[in-house]
């Protein structure tokens, strides 16, 4: 009996440790700026940067919804190879670090190597943000369409609904919450992007860019004020979206089914527009740096390559350390959420969501303030910052998998004499392994590609995305292109590993 009790005690100790870790290294650092602030000052620059950020987030989210929902529908309703191709293509911009995307989008729209039709500024930022928020909408919505039982559609059609009316009155309302969540993800992502935006902003300034600019200019009050507003807005959006997803009422009347039946005949046009948008506004700009690479005369000088390799080493070291530490504490936290231990599941789930939506440059500033008193090497400070925002990426998928597990299984293992630890190792772990792997890869990728938070805490050391930003700003395009290629290749390989792992497990 003593053995069983000891095992339970150890388990509880791990839960407590993960809770302490979460508060000290994840949540508090992320929102420390709220505690530390001496009030908010609304300078004119702050307000206009915020306004710009909102305009960009609204436009890029609206574009993504308008073309992303039809694309999600198309993906969900295709079969075989067509589905696989569309599926993989949608994921591609998602795995490209935003700084690489920023460079590529700039090359396509704004440089002499591409179309050269957009100046650095508002519309170039919109073009950039649309490329990386679009996959969030499509992913979330197409997953919801996939899970939707087709019988509802059949039932509606048996009652005389044409395809368009059926979509408006039945399929769409049933995935409404996924649309809201997708829009929320897209909106907060756009609101928080820093590194790539800096490359294409020109004279325009978004709020996250302003945070860094104020900080670098020594205007801490401006940086803090902007950060606080960004954090509050992002968190408010999170809760509004979650509330709406549950509560938003829905009516089916209004539009004439006969009119829709005539419109439904234009479906070919709709498909062409959707695919055209996806190809020309998302895919080609996102991967245009390949065209530039092909046209390059030889490699950049060795000294520049060495700089890239040094940055790579930093990025890898940080990402590996952060993933390992977060896996240890995140696993316990995920079990705690998934099993709703001590009734704390909902609380920590929400707390993790908050960390997830806090804009990274605000988060970076906050982290900088939090760790300011601690004398540590710069690389350790960067790692501490990354600990915070990558944590939810590990916790969320594992917690979801644990939550879906049949409770009876572990109980069955216990009735057969398995200790909690052995039940975990032999039953639970094998079943949730794909989610553990997915969480690890996502956290690793997130760390490798993050710009804003890194910029906010670093001075001399550069990770690869930070290096790309400075290379682009110095117009060293060949060097930037090589760095982008390496970063993309790493992300791509990781994605393949993750998909393989998920399939096998």
């Amino acid at each position, binding site marked *: 009996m003593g053995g069983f009790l000891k095992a339970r005690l150890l388990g509880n100790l791990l839960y407590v440790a993960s809770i302490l870790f979460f508060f000290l290294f994840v949540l508090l650092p992320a929102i420390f700026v709220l505690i530390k602030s001496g009030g908010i000052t609304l300078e004119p620059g702050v307000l206009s940067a915020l306004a710009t950020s909102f305009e960009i987030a609204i436009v890029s989210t609206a574009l993504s919804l308008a073309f992303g929902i039809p694309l999600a529908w198309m993906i969900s309703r295709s079969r075989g190879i067509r589905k696989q191709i569309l599926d993989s293509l949608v994921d591609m911009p998602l795995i490209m670090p935003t700084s690489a995307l920023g460079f590529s989008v700039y090359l396509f729209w704004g440089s002499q190597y591409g179309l050269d039709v957009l100046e650095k500024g508002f519309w170039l930022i919109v073009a950039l943000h649309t490329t990386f928020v679009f996959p969030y909408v499509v992913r979330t919505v197409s997953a919801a369409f996939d899970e939707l039982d087709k019988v*509802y559609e059949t039932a509606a059609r*048996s*009652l005389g609904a044409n395809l368009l009316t059926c979509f408006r009155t039945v399929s769409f309302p*049933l995935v409404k919450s996924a649309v809201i969540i997708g829009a929320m993800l897209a909106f907060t992502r756009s609101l928080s992007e820093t590194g790539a935006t800096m490359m294409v902003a020109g004279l325009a300034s978004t709020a996250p860019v302003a945070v860094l600019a104020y900080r670098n200019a020594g205007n801490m009050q401006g940086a803090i004020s902007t950060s606080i507003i960004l954090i509050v807005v992002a968190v408010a959006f999170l809760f509004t979206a979650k509330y709406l997803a549950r509560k938003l009422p829905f009516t089916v009347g209004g539009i004439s089914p006969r009119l829709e039946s005539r419109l439904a005949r234009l479906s070919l046009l709709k498909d062409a527009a959707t695919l055209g948008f996806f190809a020309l506004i998302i895919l080609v700009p996102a991967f245009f740096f390949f065209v530039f690479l092909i046209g390059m005369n030889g490699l950049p000088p060795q000294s520049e390559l060495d700089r890239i390799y040094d940055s790579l080493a930093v990025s890898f070291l940080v990402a590996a350390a952060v993933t390992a530490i977060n896996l240890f504490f995140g696993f316990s936290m995920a079990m705690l959420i998934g099993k709703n231990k001590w009734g704390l599941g909902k609380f920590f789930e929400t707390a993790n969501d908050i960390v997830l939506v806090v804009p990274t440059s605000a988060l970076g500033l906050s982290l900088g303030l939090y760790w300011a008193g601690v004398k540590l090497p710069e690389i350790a400070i960067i790692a501490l910052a990354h600990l915070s925002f990558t944590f939810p990426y590990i916790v969320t998928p594992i917690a979801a998998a644990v939550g879906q597990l049949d409770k009876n299984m572990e109980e069955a293992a216990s009735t057969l004499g398995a200790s909690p630890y052995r039940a975990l190792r032999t039953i639970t772990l094998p079943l949730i392994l794909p989610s553990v792997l997915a969480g690890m890869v996502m956290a690793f990728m997130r760390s490798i590609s993050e710009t804003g938070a890194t910029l906010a805490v670093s001075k001399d050391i550069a990770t690869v995305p930070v290096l790309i930003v400075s290379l682009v700003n110095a117009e060293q395009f060949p060097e930037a292109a090589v760095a982008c290629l390496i970063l993309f290749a790493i992300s791509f390989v990781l994605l393949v590993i993750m998909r393989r792992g998920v399939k096998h497990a």
Partner: protein
Amino acid sequence: MPEVKLKNITKKFGGNVVALHDVSLTVKDKEYVVLLGPSGCGKTSLLKSIAGIYPPDSGSVSIGGKNVTKLPIEGRNIGMMFQNYALFPHLTAEGNASYGPLMREIPKGKMHEIARKMLALAKFPLDRAGAKPSELSGGMQQRVALARALASQSSLLLLDEPLSALDAKIGEELRHDLRALAKKLGLTAIHVTHNQEEAMSTADTIVVMSKGKIMQADTPEKVYFEPNCLFVADFVGEANFFEGELVRARKGLAVRFLGKEFDLAGADSSRLPKSAGKVVVMIRPEKMAIAKKKPGHKNFVEAKIEVRRFLGEKVRYELSAGGQAIVSKRLGFGKGFKKGDSVFVSFDSENAMLFDYPEEKFEKIVGRQTA
């Protein structure tokens, strides 16, 4: 006047799996037809090709004299009930019931009226019309599904296993409501089920299907008492099958089985084409009499009671006679028998049916009975 005519319908899935094999069927106006068969027999596929959910690979479907083979689901004007109801989860009971009228652009007031009338006809309590499906019990959801199908105002009602998700008791009550309502409103109904009791008690005509083909289409009585093949005899109700040898074919028909010769002069041999060789004798368990005393005629065997099972209104006995199993059912009241009793099992020759000996599957049929 929706008479439904199916002509030579063939439907394959994934190239090889044949769901429907050259099926032809006519459902008369206002007829209540039940498609009955084991899972995978093609009954749901047949219903779905009438609805337009599965377009057939070849053949034609016509409803009310109009060829609808090429029409999409929404163009066919049907009322359909789905297996798990498929109620729209985001709409209320009334919202579900008024969906069909909404699609036909019926004015709001009239739409409201139709929805409520149909909910009432389906015996749905109107004070719950504002409830979402998730707030309703299975039986209530079923009634909403029925109201929704009726509110399409089609006179063709398609029912895909409408009662399979319900408790036995509620299902039994609702099946009678279904038939009564279809008759009252003068609807043509096509109802798919694997439950033979449900089929027997609701149908004008039962269509028994197996492996993508129609085996027999007849009244419930005929399907039960005059099955046209071993499959139907076996699938509908319980049956004793005896492997025998024809002794005399014409006058004074006699067959040798259970180790002796039986006089089957009164038996139905219309399904037996031949005059010599191996045959199968089928007798329903309730036509197998058990007695302690030796009966006054020739058609009996001595047997021992092996298993006695009390089924409520009936008692089911499993007996053995010379190593062969026999099943007998009799009403549960009165003095019964107990395990180990030695008895005489007998039958009237009018209650026996003769079938030709099948080439391969007879073992399976007999095996199922003794298990």
